[in-house]
């Protein structure tokens, strides 16, 4: 079972501390949502957990092995990372964009092995992109494009998925659709860590919520346990009304 653990990691940009003393452990089959205000250090934490940046102190272990010590293709076969920036540089076809998910296996859009091709087909299927497969990506709507990115991640067949604000600029229906994709991934045994800004959606879908503020994790646990008026106030600086584990309203202090 794939396990990602961070042991007291921290990262600085020059003199500024981005985050510090973060301990966490992601369990297989669980959907973990990282929530916190802008500038809390969520994206920086994700880049370290995804192995793209080496933490200044502490270690990130993937199945007991140091993440920064792995080769980039070893790491990419275990872990898919979806950054915030979803813009494609060239208007490639949906199918070709998804095929890039096979990069670590040596596949390219121009040359796919049998295994690559079936992984791409399966990913297109899961994300309901079959009818769009030959469309140019610059003709897609925001919702379709975000499904392309998830299909790209699923095509890598990695046990771990890390996504940075995948719901930005999506309408409610597409937000739910994407959350269902992630949920399905974890129900099949995958491990997912997702940064979300929509607290209600996070509470609805997450198995575990990680609360982050000023570069520290301040609380973690199930939504039922941690979605409290107190956490909303100390993490987001808002007064929230929560009834039966549901977020009813938010007002500024």
């Amino acid at each position, binding site marked *: 079972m794939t396990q990602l653990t961070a042991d007291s990691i921290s990262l600085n940009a020059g003199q500024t501390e981005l985050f510090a003393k973060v301990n966490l452990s992601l369990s297989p089959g669980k959907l973990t949502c990282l929530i916190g205000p802008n500038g809390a250090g969520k994206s920086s934490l994700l880049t370290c957990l995804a192995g793209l940046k080496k933490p200044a102190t502490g270690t990130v272990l993937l199945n007991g092995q140091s993440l920064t010590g792995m080769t*980039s293709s070893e790491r990419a076969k275990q872990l898919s990372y979806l950054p915030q*920036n979803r813009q494609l*540089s*060239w208007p*490639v076809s949906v199918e070709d964009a998804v095929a*890039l998910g096979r990069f670590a296996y040596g596949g390219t859009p121009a040359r796919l092995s049998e295994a690559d091709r079936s992984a791409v087909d399966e990913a297109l299927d899961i994300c309901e992109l079959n009818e769009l497969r030959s469309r140019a990506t610059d003709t897609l709507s925001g919702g379709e494009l975000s499904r392309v990115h998830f299909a790209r991640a699923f095509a890598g067949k990695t046990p771990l998925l890390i996504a940075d604000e995948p719901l930005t600029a999506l309408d409610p229906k597409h937000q739910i659709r994407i959350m269902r994709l992630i949920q399905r991934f974890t129900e099949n045994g995958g491990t997912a860590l997702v940064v979300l800004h929509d607290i209600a959606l996070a509470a609805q879908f997450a198995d575990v919520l990680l609360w982050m503020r000023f570069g520290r994790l301040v609380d973690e646990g199930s939504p039922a346990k941690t979605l409290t008026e107190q956490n909303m106030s100390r993490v987001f600086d808002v007064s929230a009304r929560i009834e039966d584990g549901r977020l009813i309203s938010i007002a500024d202090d």
Partner: protein
Amino acid sequence: MIRDLQLNAGLFTAGIIAIFLACLLGSTSLSIADVFGGLTATGADEHSVIIWQIRLPRAFAAFITGAALAMSGAALQGLLRNPLAEPGVLGVSAMSVLAATLVLYFGLATASSLILPAAAIFGALLATVLLGFAALRTGSVVTLILIGVGISSFSGALMSLLLNFAPNPFSLADMVNWTLGSVANRSLTDLAYSLPFIIAGLSLLLASARGLSALTLGEEAAAGLGLNLMHQRILVIVGAGLATGGSIAIAGAIGFVGIITPHVMRPLVGHDPGRILLPSALAGGVLLVSADILIRILPTYAELKLGVVAALIGAPAFVWIAIQKRSGGLS
């Protein structure tokens, strides 16, 4: 993919036809049989001389130059994720021409036939390395292109200085000819000195193809896919430096081939920056051989320089591409 294979085979055939036409057409009229006779050295001696000493080297020079510049342009565009990147625009050509002209100015080129290509390649590599460092410091492609414009202008200023100090009209004419860009009067030996560098450069660029495809998703996502960004930058920068420098050692500065050719090829390969490299090289070769044939048969008072014609057609095309540019890339 079968479509890519067809495209490359078609362009390769077009290249052979263009080079054959370049042997056929010219001030001395030859028949098709004369060309075959000349090529196989079974015909009249004068035909052999015309083909092997004049027309074929010139056609090869044009093809190699076009291929090197077009593939360098395509790879730089993929790396910087911007369709306006190109050795000329980024100042790589200007720096290379400057280095080659310096060698000519100080009369060093006569010492060894390797010095001129070496200087041109050194200049090109210097510019690409500068750009590489700039790329590490700035995430903005626009800034990078502006830095290229700066490198280009500064090299141009130093060029003017050299021309200003030219000791006599002959060396002035010599240096000016370089900056205009031409493939006239090249011998197969001239080509042989530059060819190894160009082949090495193009091989590095082809090795970067997979990474260029991955960069379609942006640098962060590409790194997440398992691409080593540093290796990728070095491959493209050194590859484009070697290929551009080698081509400039052959033909001087010929602009815009590296921008127009990939632009035309892009829709034919599904906009994939990895698949575009080989077709761009072949098409760039065909383009320059054809342009050079045109120059030779145009009844102008003085023969037009290839670089001048390329710029006359290329600069307006550059503006057109900039206006047409679809989403993405520019950030």
